[in-house]
């Protein structure tokens, strides 16, 4: 198979990622124990008659998709694949509360329709009049990884241009509830050496245009993705990592930058904390959840981070755990974890 090129990104996150020039110069802090995404003015991207119905997840998704397509200068694709853990939660919550509060009466269809998990992918398809393959993955910390794995298969099946993205939104009530369940804390410093429990719940939407050819806007190449479900120990993960890299005739020492999904929760980060000493022996290491917070599809933000690092050939100080100042950043590896259950490896290279 020819390579898979990342040719456009669109990112709405708690950071100033709407600004194309921004490159992790300084990081916006969390709102105490959670992050809100910084949203653009949607009128630029979405027609008012559509906008009036959309919840935030849909708006963030359609806008980020649009930005990625613009950056890649692509107007039609062979597949649209999205990942989302909670889907259009705001609309689900709205319909649910209306249902409970009015004893199943006077309900209107709009929030029900929009609450369907595949609404973002469907809306993008509808707006683009794209009749191609349209999938939505909804599996926790594997939602975006599943989208990437699918996209890589589709390229092997002969597809040329694919739009993929990860979308997550939270609501004020949801944040309150997660806090009530003792799952949140203010970010520990540094995030990769946490000794206490709790994440910073977050949200965002990150899209990518993948193509089978290099263009002027190419950032990096996506080589491979693998998921690990409930690995028991860091030895398990390391063993799987060796095999994963070996299938690309690589070993850990050849990884220039490792992007690691430390969430700031001591239990969930346990395996990554144990892996860190081994990895930083030979590779530079960066965090990313100190920038984007934790959510089901934070790995889409990790892919954004990794692609930008390869493009700029710079390791940002704001993310650096270990900076070996490599002369060339060739191979970049993302190791993510979600709640200590869903682990994944994503391998990128320069092109």
């Amino acid at each position, binding site marked *: 198979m020819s390579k898979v090129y990342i040719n456009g990104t669109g990112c709405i996150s708690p950071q100033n990622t709407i600004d194309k020039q921004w490159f992790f110069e300084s990081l916006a802090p969390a709102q105490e124990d959670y992050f809100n995404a910084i949203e653009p003015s949607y009128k630029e991207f979405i027609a*008012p*008659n559509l906008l*009036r*119905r959309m919840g935030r997840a849909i708006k963030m998704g359609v806008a980020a998709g649009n930005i990625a397509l613009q950056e890649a200068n692509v107007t039609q694709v062979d597949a649209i694949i999205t990942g989302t853990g909670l889907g259009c939660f705001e609309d689900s919550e709205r319909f649910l509360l209306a249902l409970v509060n009015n004893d199943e009466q*006077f*309900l*209107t*269809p*709009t929030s029900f*329709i929009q609450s369907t998990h595949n609404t973002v992918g469907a809306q993008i398809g509808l707006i683009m009049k794209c009749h191609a393959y349209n999938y939505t993955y909804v599996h926790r910390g594997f939602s975006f990884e599943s989208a990437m794995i699918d996209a890589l298969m589709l390229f092997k099946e002969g597809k040329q241009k694919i739009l993929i993205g990860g979308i997550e939104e939270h609501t004020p009530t949801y944040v309150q509830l997660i806090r009530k369940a003792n799952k949140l804390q203010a970010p520990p410093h540094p995030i990769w050496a946490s000794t206490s429990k709790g994440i910073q719940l977050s949200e965002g939407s990150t899209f990518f245009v993948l193509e089978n050819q290099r263009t002027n806007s190419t950032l990096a190449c996506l080589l491979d993705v693998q998921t690990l479900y409930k690995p028991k120990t860091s030895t398990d993960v390391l063993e799987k990592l060796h095999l994963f890299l070996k299938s690309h005739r690589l070993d850990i020492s050849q990884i220039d930058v490792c992007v690691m999904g430390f969430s700031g929760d001591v239990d969930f980060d346990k395996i990554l904390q144990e892996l860190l000493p081994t990895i930083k022996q030979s590779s530079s290491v960066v965090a990313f959840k100190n920038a984007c917070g934790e959510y089901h599809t934070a790995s889409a933000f990790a892919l954004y981070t990794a692609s930008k690092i390869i493009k700029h050939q710079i390791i940002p100080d704001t993310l650096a755990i270990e900076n070996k100042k490599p002369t060339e950043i060739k191979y970049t590896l993302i190791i993510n974890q979600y709640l200590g259950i869903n682990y994944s490896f994503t391998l990128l290279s320069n092109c």
Partner: protein
Amino acid sequence: MDALIEKLKGQIIEQLNLAEVKPEDINPEAPLFGDGLGLDSIDALELIVLLEKYYGIKIQDPKDGKTIFQSVKTMAEYIKSQGKA
């Protein structure tokens, strides 16, 4: 009748989240669907709920909406004909 039309305009804007539209922009005789306000079949279902919620009128068959929701004026006339205004 005019008061009912004005009230309806406000309710339609709210129900359909027509943030860009002001009551004075809506011509009571202009078509709601297609060219006029550009509403669609989902809006029709929203309008059915509007009639139930504010006027206690239940429409069983969504097809009946076609004649009732031609314009704000036809909606007002329908509400009157049902003795609900």
